[in-house]
């Protein structure tokens, strides 16, 4: 090993060991997945809970005589029939004796117009349920009144269920567009967080060495370019360690997930295996299948994280070298943090149409690629040429960023005093030969 590469190795080793041994890293690695699960689970849980909590006690003032009893039958704990005048119901609602009342006018079957009176609120969750339930009852009543046969009525009311099935070389398999889009969203979001976290690690490490004047000793021992590269690679390996740990953990959990679900939910294993669509009238998903996730998704995740990290961390290092203390860094970093944030705002559009021209173009802009291409790779089958193009573009962008960053870093680390402007930094780039 040449002297120069052994120095880079020394710096990489120093950055890696001091970070990996730190408590923050160990806690972050272990708690990261828990926080991620919590971030996903809490909105779902609160949405589910909101369906139950509101409007427990609702009176029904039925002028048709036929609809009311059917509503009560749906949920006797919640609804009860009444013949009290509307004024009294109003008072009782205001007095919080009941949560509200449902007014079914005599022409409700014809007009389809009903009214719910509450103290306000009640939540979208409840209204959605009520809307669904009443629509079904009134539709059925209309058919009955039109003299339809019971068989016809049952046929009409039978739900429609669309299963998407993907055709592949090996035959057909169930398509999990929605689930995969969700996975893409999560992975893109994790890359976003990781680029920020590790970018700021690099920036903080640069500023620490500058503020504590350690850099003068290091710069008298190694080339600035080698210091920058060693630091970025060393901290990048810390990120890689964390990500590889998470990928393996996810793989293990996913591999065992089907087995665990089997234990708790009694579903014909053959059905899961075949992934056959099942017609169902219920609002629950047809079955508990876990979409089969290609190992390439893990590879893609690691690649897009690492390439995004390299691009942004070199820029963070450059800007870190320009300031004397961390509090000065935030403002200067806006041009670098902005292109990390923009893709997050675009994820929705990408997921809606991952194969569209907009998605293709945006995901090939190198500063957006790590997040957006990750989303697309998860959500759809991205053509190989686009993957190849993204790899080439990312690598060349990284080299370009490293080239510029090294120039800024070289001058910045030894420049103290006045907080530099972008004009100064531009001058440094020109200055460095």
């Amino acid at each position, binding site marked *: 090993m040449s002297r120069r590469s052994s120095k880079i190795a020394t*710096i990489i080793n120093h950055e890696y060991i001091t970070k990996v041994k730190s408590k923050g890293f160990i806690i972050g690695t272990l708690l990261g997945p828990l926080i991620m699960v919590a971030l996903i689970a809490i909105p779902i849980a609160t949405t589910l809970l909101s369906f139950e909590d509101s409007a427990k006690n609702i009176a029904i003032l039925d002028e048709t005589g036929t609809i009311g009893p059917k509503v009560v039958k749906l949920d006797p704990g919640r609804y009860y029939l009444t013949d009290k005048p509307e004024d009294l119901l109003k008072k009782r609602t205001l007095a919080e004796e009941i949560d509200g009342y449902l007014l079914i006018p005599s022409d409700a079957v014809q007009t389809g117009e009903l009214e719910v009176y509450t103290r306000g609120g009640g939540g979208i969750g409840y209204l959605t349920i009520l809307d669904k339930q009443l629509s079904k009852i009134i539709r059925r009543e209309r058919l009955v009144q039109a003299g339809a046969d019971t068989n016809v009525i049952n046929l009409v009311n039978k739900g429609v269920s669309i299963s998407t099935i993907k055709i592949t070389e090996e035959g057909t398999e169930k398509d999990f567009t929605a689930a995969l889009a969700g996975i893409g969203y999560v992975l893109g979001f994790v890359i976003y967080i990781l680029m920020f976290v590790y970018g700021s690690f690099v920036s903080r490490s640069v500023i620490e060495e500058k503020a504590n004047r*350690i*850099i*003068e000793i*290091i710069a008298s021992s190694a080339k600035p370019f080698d210091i920058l590269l060693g630091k970025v690679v060393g901290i990048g390996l810390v990120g890689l360690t964390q990500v590889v740990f998470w990928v393996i953990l996810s793989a293990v959990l996913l591999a065992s997930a089907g087995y665990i679900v089997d234990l708790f939910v009694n579903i014909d294993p053959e059905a899961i295996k075949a992934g056959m669509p099942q017609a169902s009238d219920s609002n629950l998903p047809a079955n508990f299948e876990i979409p089969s996730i290609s190992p390439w998704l893990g590879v893609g995740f690691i690649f897009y994280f690492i390439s995004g990290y390299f691009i942004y961390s070199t820029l963070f290092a450059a800007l870190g070298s320009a300031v004397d203390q961390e509090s000065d860094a935030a403002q200067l970093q806006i041009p670098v943090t902005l292109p990390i944030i923009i893709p997050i705002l675009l994820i929705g559009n990408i997921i809606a149409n991952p194969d569209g021209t907009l998605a293709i173009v945006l995901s090939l802009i190198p500063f957006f690629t790590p997040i957006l291409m990750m989303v697309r790779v998860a959500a759809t089958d991205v053509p190989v040429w686009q993957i190849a193009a993204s790899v080439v573009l990312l690598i060349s962008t990284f080299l370009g960023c490293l080239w510029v960053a090294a120039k800024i870093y070289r001058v910045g680390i*030894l420049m103290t005093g006045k907080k530099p402007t972008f004009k100064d930094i531009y001058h440094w780039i020109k200055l460095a*030969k």
Partner: protein
Amino acid sequence: MEILKVENVVKSFRDIIAVNDVSLSVSAGRIFGLLGPNGAGKTTMIRMITNIYMPDSGSITLFGQPVSSELQNRIGYLPEERGLYKKLKVIDQLVYFGMLKGMTRPNATTQALKWLAEFGAADWAGKKIQELSKGMQQKVQFICTILHEPDFLILDEPFSGFDPINVEALKNIILKMRGEGKTIILSTHVMQQVEELCDDICLINKGKAILSGRVREIKKSFGRDSVIMEFEGSNEFLNAFPDIEFINKSANRVEFKLNGMSSSDVLKAASESVEVIRFELAEPNFNEIFIDVVGTQEAENE
């Protein structure tokens, strides 16, 4: 033998010329004082020798080769502004800096423990830098500089932050290193240390070398122009010599420059009116030379 040769070096930053056509030469086994007021260009000069900066023009030759990153391993550099990783353990810190200078891990570890013991600091090895006192940190910093046993050292204000006892200890270490044939550049503001330690000097002001040579010869060239005098009685007899320039004046002791007056005339006048206890023709001290030379240049520029 010439270890370092700096020839016509220029370095400027934007519109400021930090080092302007400086040449100097440092011989093996000597202590070379690099002097000058704040902002004179000393640090820029040092950074060019340590290959942190590249000169705009001119050449710097170290150990007979142009300075390069390969040569950095043979330099021990103690910067004026000290820097250590606050949260790193002393031993990890020393080993990291040692390895950056090309040492192997086992070798750096052995040397670090050896030097810690030498400084009576063997039990600090496992402590974090931030747990150490300022003086202790200075010692660790100094060990960082000499750990890889460089033949060429640059010490920028090495004594700052040390108590008098440790200053003495450090002086002895520096003199011992010179005795071992190492070459040392010493940059300091304390002129007394220059006289005690340096063999040669170069005085830089405003980017230019304004005085250089052997300490002995420089002192000699500034002549025996000062008088130190102690006596009993009134110092009024000195009023007869209007050209005298006082450096120090108290009741029974005066220090002054003759400025061309004859020393024997002064002595004669003194012996007539007071009892002379001491009368010494002294060489100027470096503090005076420093102020004199820098002051003259300032005056010329105005």
